[in-house]
C-alpha cells in the first residue's frame, strides 16, 4: 500500500493536533499552578462574593489576605479535590475566601498568588439592579425584557471581540473655554463575556475636566445585533480648559473573557473536525483591557475679550437673578439678610458675586453662598448669596439692585442680569433711637404724679395669692366639701323607701285610730303589695293571694285573711270590730323586714 504525500501531511497534522493540547496543558500547569477566580464579579451591597483559589501543585499553606479599602476578606473553607486536565485527574487544593464590601464601587483585588492576575469586583447599591447577578441569584424578580434594537447607537463601535462598546455623547456645537456642557458616557457590556468593569470611564487627554461623574450609572438592558447588552450611562459635565480643536475619546477598563490561544493554535484547532478536540483548545480566560470610544471632534472657542464686563467672573451659559431681604419689618440695629438668587444652567462653580462691599447708611458683612443642584450633575440649580446688613438709620431706605455678568453662548455675547432695588422700612430701635422717637409728648409733659398717703395693708409676697400652694388648699378643701355634700344629698333608695314606709305606717295608724276599716285595709294592702313587689322582684299587679303559700309559708294565712278583710271592708263600708293593732303590727313587721 502506497501512501500519498497529501495523506502524510494529514497524518502529521493530526499527530501534532493530538500533541498540542498536552503540551499546552503542561505549559499551562507550569505557568499557573495556582490561579483564582471570583464569583460573582458584581454584587449588591450587603452581599458577599467568593474568591476560589485553586492550586494544582500541592496544599496552599499560607494565603495572605489582601488589603483593599472597602473590602473585608475572610477565609471560609479549605478543600481537597481533583481537577481534570485533558481527562486526567490532578490532585488539587482549594481555598475559599469570602469578600464582603463596606460600600459601593468598583474594586480591584490584587492577585493572591504569585503568578495570578488581579480580580475586579463591582459593588452596586442594594436597590440597584445587579447587572451580573441574575445568573447566580434568582431571588430578585426578573428584569423587564430588553428593548429590541437593530443596530448599535450612532457613534458606537463594538470592541473586545464584540463584547463591549463605549460611546461619548457631546454637543455638536462649538463650546467656549470654561463653559460646562452636559455629556453622556455610555458603556455597553455583554453579560457573561465581560466579567467586570474595573473602574470609571475617563476622558483621554488633559485638556478637559469631567466633573461630577455620578458613581452610580443608569442601567438598562438593550439588544444590539441579536445580543443582549447591559447599557450603563453616566451623566456628567465636561469643561474645556483651553481653546482649540480636539478629538475627544472616553475609555473604560474592564475584564473580558477571551480566548488566549494564538491564531496559529486556533487555526490548528479549527482543522479538527471533532468538537471535543476543538474544546481542548478552548482557553477562555478573563483578560483586563481598556475599551475606548470613537473619537468625537469638539471645537473650543476662547471667550471674546470685546465687551467683557469688569465684574465678569467666568460664568458661562444662561442665568436669571432675583433678590429678597429678610426680615420684612426690621428695626434699626437689627441684622438683615440680603439674598441674591442665581438660577439657570451653566458652570455654577464660576458664578460669583461680591454683593455689596460698601453701602451708604449700611454696615456690610462678607457674603456666603450655597448651591442647590436640581439635576444629578449640578448643571442646573440655584446658587444663593447671603449677605448680612445692618443699618442704624430708621425710616424708609432703598437697597440698590444687584448685578451679575455672564457670557451667553447662544447669543455669543456678554449679558448682565440685574435685580430690582429693594425698599425696606426700618423701624425705630430700642437701643439706638432718638429720645423723641418713642416718648409720647403728652406723656412727657404731664410729669410724675405725686406720692400716695400710706393707708393700705401690705403683703409678704408679691406672688399672686392664687399661685400660693397654701392658698390653693382653700379652694381644694371647699371643692372636697362640696363633693362630699353631693354624695350626701344624692337620692338613696333605702332612705327613700324608709321614708315612704314611715309615711304609710303613720297613715295606717291614723286610719286605725279613726276606725276607718276600708281605708286601713286598703292602705295596708297597698303597702304590702309594694313591699312584696320589691322583695320578690315582680310586678305588683301580678301579686295575688295565690302566691302567698309558696312564698310566705305558714304566715300566708294571715295575709290571705287581710286581703279578704280589705275586700270586705271595701264593699261593706261598715266599721267592724276589727283588731286594727294586730293588723298594724303585721304590716309594720313586713315593712321593716329586710
Amino acid at each position, binding site marked *: 500500500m502506497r501512501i500519498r504525500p497529501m495523506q502524510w501531511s494529514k497524518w502529521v497534522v493530526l499527530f501534532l493536533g493530538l500533541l498540542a493540547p498536552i503540551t499546552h496543558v503542561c505549559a499551562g500547569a507550569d505557568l499557573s499552578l495556582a490561579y483564582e477566580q471570583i464569583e460573582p464579579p458584581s454584587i449588591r451591597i450587603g452581599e458577599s462574593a467568593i474568591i476560589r483559589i485553586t492550586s494544582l501543585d500541592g496544599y496552599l499553606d499560607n494565603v495572605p489576605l489582601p488589603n483593599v479599602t472597602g473590602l473585608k476578606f475572610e477565609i471560609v473553607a479549605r478543600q481537597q479535590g481533583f481537577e481534570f486536565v485533558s481527562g486526567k485527574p490532578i490532585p488539587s487544593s482549594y481555598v475559599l475566601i469570602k469578600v464582603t464590601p463596606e460600600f459601593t464601587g468598583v474594586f480591584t483585588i490584587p492577585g493572591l498568588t504569585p503568578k495570578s492576575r488581579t480580580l475586579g469586583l463591582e459593588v452596586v447599591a442594594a436597590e440597584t439592579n445587579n447587572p451580573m447577578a441574575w445568573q447566580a441569584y434568582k431571588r430578585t424578580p426578573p428584569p423587564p425584557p430588553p428593548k429590541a434594537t437593530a443596530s448599535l447607537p450612532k457613534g458606537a463601535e463594538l470592541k473586545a471581540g464584540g463584547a463591549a462598546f463605549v460611546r461619548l455623547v457631546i454637543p455638536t456645537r462649538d463650546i467656549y473655554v470654561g463653559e460646562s456642557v452636559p455629556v453622556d458616557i455610555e458603556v455597553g457590556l455583554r453579560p457573561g463575556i465581560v466579567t467586570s468593569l474595573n473602574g470609571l470611564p475617563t476622558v483621554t487627554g488633559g485638556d478637559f475636566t469631567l466633573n461630577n461623574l455620578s458613581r452610580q450609572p443608569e442601567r438598562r438592558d438593550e439588544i444590539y445585533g441579536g445580543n443582549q447588552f447591559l447599557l450603563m450611562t453616566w451623566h456628567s459635565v465636561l469643561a474645556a480648559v483651553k481653546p482649540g480643536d480636539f478629538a475627544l475619546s472616553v475609555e473604560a477598563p474592564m475584564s473580558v473573557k477571551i480566548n488566549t490561544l494564538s491564531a496559529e493554535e486556533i487555526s490548528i484547532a479549527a482543522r479538527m473536525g471533532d468538537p471535543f478536540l476543538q474544546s481542548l483548545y478552548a482557553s477562555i480566560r478573563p483578560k483586563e483591557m481598556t475599551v475606548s470610544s470613537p473619537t468625537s471632534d469638539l471645537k473650543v472657542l476662547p471667550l471674546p475679550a470685546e465687551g467683557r464686563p469688569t465684574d465678569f467672573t467666568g460664568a458661562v451659559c444662561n442665568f436669571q437673578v432675583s433678590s429678597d431681604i429678610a426680615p420684612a419689618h426690621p*428695626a434699626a*440695629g437689627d441684622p438683615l439678610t440680603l439674598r441674591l438668587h442665581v438660577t439657570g444652567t451653566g458652570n455654577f462653580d464660576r458664578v460669583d458675586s461680591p454683593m455689596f462691599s460698601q453701602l451708604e447708611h449700611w454696615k456690610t458683612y462678607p457674603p456666603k453662598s450655597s448651591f442647590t443642584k436640581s439635576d444629578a450633575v449640578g448643571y442646573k440649580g440655584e446658587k444663593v448669596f447671603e449677605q448680612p446688613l445692618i443699618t442704624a438709620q430708621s425710616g424708609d431706605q432703598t437697597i440698590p439692585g444687584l448685578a451679575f455678568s455672564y457670557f451667553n453662548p447662544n447669543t455669543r455675547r456678554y449679558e448682565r442680569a440685574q435685580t430690582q432695588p429693594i425698599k425696606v422700612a426700618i423701624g425705630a430701635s*430700642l*437701643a439706638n*433711637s432718638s*429720645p423723641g*422717637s*418713642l*416718648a*409720647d409728648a403728652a*406723656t*412727657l409733659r*404731664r*410729669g*410724675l*404724679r*405725686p*406720692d*400716695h*398717703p*400710706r*393707708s*393700705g*395693708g*401690705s*403683703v*409678704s*409676697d*408679691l*406672688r*399672686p*395669692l*392664687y*399661685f400660693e400652694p397654701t*392658698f390653693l388648699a*382653700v*379652694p381644694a378643701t*371647699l*371643692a372636697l366639701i*362640696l363633693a362630699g*355634700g*353631693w354624695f350626701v*344629698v*344624692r337620692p338613696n333608695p333605702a332612705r327613700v323607701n324608709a321614708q315612704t314606709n314611715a309615711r304609710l305606717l303613720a297613715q295606717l295608724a291614723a286610719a286605725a285610730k279613726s276606725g276607718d276599716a276600708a281605708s286601713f285595709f286598703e292602705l295596708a294592702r297597698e303597702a304590702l303589695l309594694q313591699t312584696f313587689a320589691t322583695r320578690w322582684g315582680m310586678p305588683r299587679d301580678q301579686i295575688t293571694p295565690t302566691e302567698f303559700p309558696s312564698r310566705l309559708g305558714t304566715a300566708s294565712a294571715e295575709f290571705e285573711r287581710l286581703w279578704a278583710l280589705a275586700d270586705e271592708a271595701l264593699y261593706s263600708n261598715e266599721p267592724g270590730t276589727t283588731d286594727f293593732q294586730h293588723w298594724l303590727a303585721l304590716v309594720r313587721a313586713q315593712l321593716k323586714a329586710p
Partner: protein
Amino acid sequence: MRAATKTTLTLALTFSAAIAFAAQSAPTSPPALPSQAAASPPTTYSAEGLYNLANQYARAGKPGLAVLNYERAALLAPNDPDITSNLEYVRATAQVPTEPHTRLTRFARLTTPTTAAWLGVIGIALLGGALLASKATRRYRALRVIAALLGITDIALTLSNAALLWPHLHDAVILINQTPARVSPVPMGDTAFVLREAETVTMTAEHEDFILIRTRTGRTGWVARANVGAVVP
C-alpha cells in the same frame, strides 16, 4: 327638705361673706420703707409703699429701679391710675416702649390678684352650693341659677386674671444702662446686643450668675444677674 335647701344656700352665702371679709381684712403691717438696695426684696410690700419708692427713684434719675417698683406696685394695685401714668412717664423718658393694654388686660385687671383669688373661692362656693341645692330640691330655681351664674363669673374672672399675670411672673427690668446681652453665660462672652435701662424683659433660664432673657422683640441673650431685677422676687 325645704329647711335643708335653705341651710345649703345659707351656708354657701355665709361662707362667701366670710371669705369676702377675710379678703378685706388682709393683714396689715408697717409700710415698706425706701431702700437704696431696692432690687433686693423687702420683707413686706404695699402698693403705696412701692409706688412712693418708685417715685423717689424716678426723681433720682434711676428709671430702672423706678420701673421695677412701679411694676411691683401694679401687681398689688393694677387699677391705680397713678401707677400706670407714672410707669408710662418713666418709660417714655427712658426711651423704652410702653406695654400695650388690651381689652382682656383691662377686664382681668378689674380686681387685684388677692381679690381675684378670693373671688374664685366664692365662685366655687356659689357654683357648688347651687349644684347641691338643685340636687336636693327643685324649688328656688331662680335663686339657684343666679348663684350658679355668679359663681361662674367669679371663677372666670379669677382664671383670666391668673392667665394674664402668669407671664409677668417671670418679668424683669434692666437696672443698668447699656447692659450687654451676651451669647453665652460667661463674662467674656460675645455681646449679642445691648439693653437700655428700664427695659422690661422676660427671664427664661438662669445659669450661675447669668440670666437668659428675651426681649419684647424676641431677641435672647445672657445678662448678668446683678443688672436685672425680677418683678416678682
